């Protein structure tokens, strides 16, 4: 199992909305970067390939950061330094190098989209877990992303819940991540065992001589 992009995962997944916000921003960067890299394939000579990826990703992230500052200002303030840190997310340069620079734009777009949405899913899952344990709520502060009418979307599971502080702090993020990896290993193992047990089609019976 590959573990990429852990920095934002551990720091920003305090709530579902924070995880969702950063996940969608990362997806946008992934799609933009993948498509652009795919389109400039003819000019990617070996010596300057990596610097061009870095330039491209940094420009895309800066543009997206400015757009978030302008149109989602509250969320921008909450996510803070982790928006520009998307540049350092090795998943983005990883996909550009190993996939987008070798296929056409449509495949690169789909790859960026699916990778990004998968990343968002993990951020939301971990964010949900930490929010439920740490604050007893889900979807709190939804108005940061969806506007003032989303203020009532918060689901309070236990009123007057004081909150498990550990879930809110970074060690809680590590523990939560470990739990997610353990669950995935469990599911993978089950799937592998089921495939091994499945009967191999019997060879045709030998015709009697």
């Amino acid at each position, binding site marked *: 199992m590959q573990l990429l992009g852990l920095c934002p995962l551990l720091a920003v997944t305090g709530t579902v909305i924070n995880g969702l916000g950063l996940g969608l921003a990362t997806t946008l960067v992934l799609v933009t970067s993948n498509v652009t890299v795919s389109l400039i394939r003819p000019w990617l000579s070996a010596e300057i390939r990596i610097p061009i990826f870095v330039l491209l990703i940094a*420009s895309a992230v800066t543009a997206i950061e400015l757009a978030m500052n302008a149109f989602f200002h509250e969320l921008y303030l909450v996510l803070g330094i982790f928006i520009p840190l998307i540049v350092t997310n090795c998943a983005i340069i990883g996909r550009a190098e190993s996939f987008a620079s070798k296929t056409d734009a449509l495949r690169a777009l789909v790859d960026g989209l699916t990778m990004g949405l998968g990343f968002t899913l993990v951020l939301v899952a971990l964010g949900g877990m930490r929010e439920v344990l740490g604050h007893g709520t889900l979807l709190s502060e939804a108005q940061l992303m969806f506007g003032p009418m989303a203020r009532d979307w918060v689901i309070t599971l236990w009123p007057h819940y004081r909150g498990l502080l550990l879930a*809110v702090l970074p060690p809680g993020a590590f523990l939560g991540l470990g739990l997610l990896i353990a669950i995935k290993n469990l599911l993978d193992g089950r799937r592998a065992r089921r495939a091994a047990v499945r009967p191999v089609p019997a060879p045709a019976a030998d015709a009697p001589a």
Partner: protein
Amino acid sequence: MPPAWRNTLRAGALLGLFAVAGTGLVAFVHGHTQARIAANERAVLLRELHAILPDSLYDNNLANSRIMLHSPELGAHAGEGLPAYLATKDGRPSAIVFTVVAPDGYGGPIKLLVGIDARGVITGVRVISHQETPGLGDWIDTRHSDWIYGFTGHSLHDPPLSRWAVKRDGGDFDQFTGATITPRAVVGAIRRTLLYFDAHRDQLFAQVPAQTP
């Protein structure tokens, strides 16, 4: 020109071209979002100031009546000023909101807004940035407790100066169980602000502009 040199020059030119394109994109987006970003930041500032001063106390645009203060008592470093906002009603000064920095927070400096009216009474205090421990020191934040609202209505001699401290230091203000350093830093900063206001009140209010733009 040997082919190796030609390749290098070509590669360099290509890189330069991409650099220009990337910079162009960023410049384009920047130009188109600059106004909105400035408006957003002004709105956040006005919302914070609005939480500290009651509406009835002023009728001017606070964002336009900013003065920069360089006093070390308010926590300003050399060369860097801290903004204060003058509030007026019918052209007469009615209150001032100071930006104060408490350098002795547990996790680092704590930045506060302290609103004081013309009589020297605190209209409100809010913490606008801090690095205090979640679950302990961060109770100075309104999102976690109402502690900071308790300063409203107090002034330099209410409680008397000697009692402007946390209870553990012989004062009147609650500290938090398990976190004394954080509330001590905040109480100290507010006390220093009140002393500063008392000493410089007339100079500060004299800076009210002749007419509000």
